[in-house]
């Protein structure tokens, strides 16, 4: 079957040897916007409802049909075939996680999950490596941080998909100045916190 890209299905009517009923169908084809015509295939006569029997949209009747070899018939498609793009993402729940332990033999890890959406109690979960993008696998180490987003994604074709995505924190480095500030802070605080205090084992009087 020869394929030809065209934005106008009607252009091919006269070049195809089609059953009479289908020719009659195509004569009534109206020009549809390209975006609504990602691909159209000729379908055999018996898979298309006749005009007098079905008042449904012409395009939907073609797209719903089955494909089979039509000999000299042509299939045609529009010249543009845009990939549906994500137009909306509705976040339903978000967790922040910390890896507690990793088991490479079972290819899973234990993580503590903090519910950022509903503020429910922290939970622990065992997550398999297969749930994580391969690029993030090297980041799965004890203490590693990640976010887990759960929600619904809608694309430009109005298709809705449920999404569950775990992404590990990466590409972050504390500056030298921040590190020095933190160390200086720690030195000062340590001195202040232990001024006049001692570990409990060394003190004989408790409670103030």
């Amino acid at each position, binding site marked *: 079957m020869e394929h030809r890209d065209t934005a106008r299905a009607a252009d091919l009517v006269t070049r195809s040897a089609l059953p009479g009923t289908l020719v009659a169908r195509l004569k009534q084809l109206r020009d549809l916007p390209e975006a609504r015509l990602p691909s159209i295939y000729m379908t055999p006569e018996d898979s298309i409802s006749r005009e007098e029997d079905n008042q449904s949209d012409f395009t939907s009747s073609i797209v719903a049909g089955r494909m089979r070899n039509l000999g000299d018939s042509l299939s045609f498609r529009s010249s543009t075939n845009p990939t549906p793009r994500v137009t909306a993402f509705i976040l339903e729940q978000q967790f*922040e996680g*910390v890896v*507690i332990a990793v088991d490479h033999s079972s290819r899973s890890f234990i993580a*503590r999950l*903090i519910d*950022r959406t509903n*503020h*429910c*109690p*922290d939970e622990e979960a065992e997550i398999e490596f297969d749930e994580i993008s391969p690029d993030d696998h090297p*980041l799965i*180490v*004890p*203490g*590693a*941080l990640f*976010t887990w987003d759960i929600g619904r994604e809608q694309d430009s074709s109005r298709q809705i998909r449920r999404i569950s995505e775990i992404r590990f*924190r*990466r*590409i*972050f*480095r*504390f500056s030298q100045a*921040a*590190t020095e*500030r*933190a*160390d200086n*802070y*720690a*030195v000062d*605080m*340590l001195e*202040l*916190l*232990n*001024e*006049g*205090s001692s*570990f*409990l*084992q060394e003190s004989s009087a*408790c*409670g*103030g």
Partner: protein
Amino acid sequence: MKEALSSRSHPPAADELEISIFGPGFGESVVIHIGAGRWILIDSCIDTNTGIPAALDYLNALSASPEAVELIVATHWHDDHVRGLATMVNACSTAQFACSAGLNSHEFLALASLYAECPTSIPAGPTELKRAFEQVIARRKTPSYRPIKWARSDTLIWDQQVPIADRKLQVRLHALSPSDEMLTRAMEEMAQAHAAATQSDQVTLPSQVARIISVSL
């Protein structure tokens, strides 16, 4: 939490021991009346209805003064147990504050300071404890200042007599952990996390386990 508060419209009697447990789960914050209008608070969580620590909300509902709080204990830094802790420490200006001895280290304080500057959103436990420490330090020059109690296993955190009627009740709070082994592991993990934070591209947190303290009353 609204149901718990409405069920108690008056404070406990002077000779009444009361243990109140708050939290979205179970035990994220514990409020203990040890007698004679004196209180001990263990951990903190936020009442989502009011936005303030559940323990303070409860005391306020009973018309109990925050200054009647004798001791605040932070058992560990999980978010669901420390939210609002610094606010609680600030409000209870005369209370003793106690937490794990594992937090009394350069590495933890440096990490908490770094995490506070972290532009990404990470668990806030260490930062909340840092703020609680700063609240205590801010009272250094005041008569109400009480140095932090650094808790280890099998040690006494608090030991006082509570006058009840014509008697005195001895109240003690023991720390059951962390053990020496847990403290050693904690120090090692925090040193590793500190080194990782300053040398690598990955933000990590030390393991939580070694920082937990348990108490018995």
